[in-house]
C-alpha cells in the first residue's frame, strides 16, 4: 500500500484530472438546479444563454406563500426520526441476540430478517394499503413511521450486527466477571463500543426513509401526511403552470438533509455498506 502510493508511476496531474472530472460530473446538476432556483422565472425559459444570471428570491417567495413546505418538512422529520428510533429500539437487541446468544435457528432467523429486504416493495403494497386502511391510519404520519421502520429494520439489524461481531467476546466476559448483568453489558459495554455502527445504521436508515416514495404515495393523500419526497413529485409550481425555478428550489431543499447526513457519516459509510462482509 505504502509502496504503491509512493511509486513514481503515479501521475498526480492525471489523477486530479480524473477525480476532478468525476466531481464536476456529480456536482454540476446540483449547482445547476441551485442556480435555477435563485433566478427569476423569465431567465429560465429564455433560449439565449445567460452567463451572469440575476439573483432572485422569487421562487422562494412563491414557495413560502403557496406551498405548505413546513408541513411537508415536519412530516418528513417526524416520520423519519420516529422510524429510526423504532429501528434502534428493536434492532439493537435483535442484533445483539444474533451475535451473542446461541440458540437453534439463530442464523436462519438472521437470514430471514435480511431477506425481508430482498422483496420488491410493490409486492406488499396492496396488503399494506388495506392493513392501514382497516387500522384507520391512512394519510397519517404514524403509518409512515411504522412502514419506514419496517422497511429499514433488516438493514439496521445487519449493520449493527456486523459491528457487534467485531467486539471481542473478552470484553463481555470481563464485564460479567466484574459483576455486570446482560442488560448492563448491552447498555454500558456493547452499545458504546459499536456506537459508530449504530450511527451509521441510523443515518443509512434515515436516508432510505427520506427517499421512500412508493409507500408514502400509497398512504399519504393530503398535506397532513405528504413528505418532501412525494410532495416534490407532485409539485409543478401551482396553478400557473410548471414553474421550474420553484421546482429546482424544492429539489434542493429535499436534497439538503441527505447531504448533511452523508457528510456526517462519510467516514463510516463504506464500512457500513459492506456490512461485515469484509473483515479487516
Amino acid at each position, binding site marked *: 500500500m505504502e509502496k504503491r502510493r509512493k511509486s513514481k508511476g503515479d501521475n498526480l496531474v492525471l489523477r486530479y484530472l480524473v477525480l476532478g472530472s468525476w466531481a464536476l460530473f456529480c456536482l454540476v446538476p446540483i449547482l445547476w438546479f441551485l442556480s435555477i432556483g435563485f433566478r427569476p422565472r423569465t431567465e429560465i425559459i429564455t433560449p439565449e444563454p445567460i452567463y451572469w444570471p440575476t439573483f432572485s428570491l422569487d421562487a422562494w417567495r412563491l414557495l413560502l406563500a403557496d406551498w405548505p413546505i413546513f408541513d411537508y418538512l415536519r412530516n418528513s422529520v417526524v416520520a423519519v426520526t420516529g422510524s429510526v428510533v423504532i429501528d434502534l429500539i428493536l434492532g439493537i437487541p435483535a442484533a445483539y441476540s444474533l451475535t451473542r446468544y446461541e440458540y437453534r435457528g439463530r442464523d436462519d432467523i438472521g437470514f430471514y430478517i435480511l431477506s425481508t429486504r430482498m422483496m420488491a416493495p410493490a409486492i406488499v403494497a396492496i396488503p399494506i394499503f388495506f392493513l392501514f386502511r382497516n387500522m384507520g391510519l391512512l394519510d397519517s404520519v404514524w403509518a409512515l413511521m411504522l412502514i419506514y421502520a419496517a422497511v429499514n429494520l433488516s438493514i439496521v439489524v445487519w449493520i449493527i450486527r456486523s459491528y457487534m461481531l467485531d467486539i*471481542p467476546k*473478552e*470484553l463481555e*466476559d*470481563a*464485564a*460479567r*466477571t*466484574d*459483576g*455486570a*448483568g446482560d442488560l*448492563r453489558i448491552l447498555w*454500558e*459495554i456493547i452499545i*458504546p*463500543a459499536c*456506537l459508530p455502527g449504530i450511527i451509521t445504521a441510523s443515518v443509512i436508515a434515515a436516508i432510505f426513509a427520506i427517499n421512500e416514495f412508493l409507500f408514502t404515495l400509497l398512504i399519504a393523500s393530503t398535506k397532513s401526511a405528504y413528505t418532501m419526497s412525494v410532495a416534490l413529485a407532485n409539485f409543478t409550481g401551482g396553478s400557473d403552470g410548471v414553474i421550474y425555478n420553484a421546482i429546482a428550489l424544492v429539489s434542493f431543499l429535499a436534497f439538503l438533509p441527505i447531504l448533511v447526513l452523508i457528510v456526517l457519516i462519510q467516514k463510516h459509510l463504506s464500512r457500513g455498506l459492506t456490512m461485515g462482509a469484509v473483515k479487516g
Partner: protein
Amino acid sequence: MARIELRNVVKRYGSFTGVRRMDLDIADEEFLVLLGPSGCGKTTTMRMIAGLEEPSEGEVVIGGEVVNEVDARDRDVAMVFQGYALYPNMSIYENIRFPLRMRGIGKSDQDALIRRAAEMVELGDFLDRKPGALSGGQRQRAALARAVVRQPQVFLMDEPLSNLDAKLRSSMRVQIKHLQRQLRITTVYVTHDQIEAMTLADRIVIMEKGVIRQIGTPDEIYSDPADTFVAGFIGAPPMNLVEGKAENGRFTAPGLVAACPPDISGRITLGVRPEDCRVVTDGPAELAGAVYGVEPTGETTYLTLRTGETLFEVKAARDARFDLGAPVKICFDPERIYFFDTETGVRLRAQPQRSAA
C-alpha cells in the same frame, strides 16, 4: 481469599471433550499455574472457575461453596484477559471503577480504592486516558488494576503477558508475582510459556489434551518429571529424549550406551537435560556424535550433536567452540538420567538401591 476445588470436572463441547475428569485442589493464597500447549484445556478450566463456562459434569467449589449454579457476576472472582479487555469507551479511571460500581460500593469509597489500585501498578498518571492512548504494557497494568481494585477472593489470569514483548514480559512477571504476594489472593494463571510457569508458580499443573499430566512445585516438575510430555515441555532447551533398548542394566541406542537400573528392560526412552551433560575429550563416555550446530548465547554455548537419527543438545562451556562435523564425546550426570517407557511415555523409576554407574 479462598480455596478452590475442582471435583471430577468434565467439559464437553458436542462430541469433543475439552477437559476430562479433572480433580484439582488449590490452596488459599496459592499461586497456581496451568501450563500446557494450546488446546490442552487450561483456559477452559479457568473459565469454568470464573463461571464463564459451565462444567458438563463435576463440581467447582470456591471457598467451600459449590458454585456450579452461581453466575460469573456473583462469584467473587476477578479475571485478567489475554487481550486486556479494557472497556474502550471509558477512561482508565472509569475502567477501574466499573467493578466497584457493579458491586454497589459506595461512591465515597470508590475514589480512594481506585487510586490505590492505580498506584499499585504505577498507573496513577494515566487515569484520565482512554485505553487506546496507552501502550501494551500500560494497558496490561490497567487490566491488573481493574482486577485488584475490589480485592476479590480469586484472581484468574489468562495468558496476560502473551501480547507483550519479551523485555516487558519479564518485568511484568515480577510485578504480578509481587502483587500476588502482597495481596495474598488465591491466583490461577494460565500460560503456555514454561518460563512464566516456572518463575511465577507455587505449583504448576501441566495439562495435555484435557488431562493433567503432572502437578507439582516448579522444582519437582523440573527435576522429577512424570512422563516424556512433561520432560519435553519443561526446560529450555528441552530435555533430550532418545529412544532405544534396555536390557541387563544397559541402555543402548545408536551412538549411545548408558547404564540403567537392572529392573528396566524393553523399549525405553532415555532422557537427559542439556545441562546435565559434559563434553569430555577422553575416557569413558555415554554418547558419541558429530557436531551439528553451535549456538553461543553469551551466557553459555549450546552444542547440538547428531548421533544416528537424533539430534542431541548439550550445554557446553561458555567459550567452547567446535568445528561442524567434529567428533565429540559426552558424559552424563548419572544422578540425572531419566528413563521412560517408550510406548506410554510414563517415567520408570529406579528401585530404592539405584546403581550409580
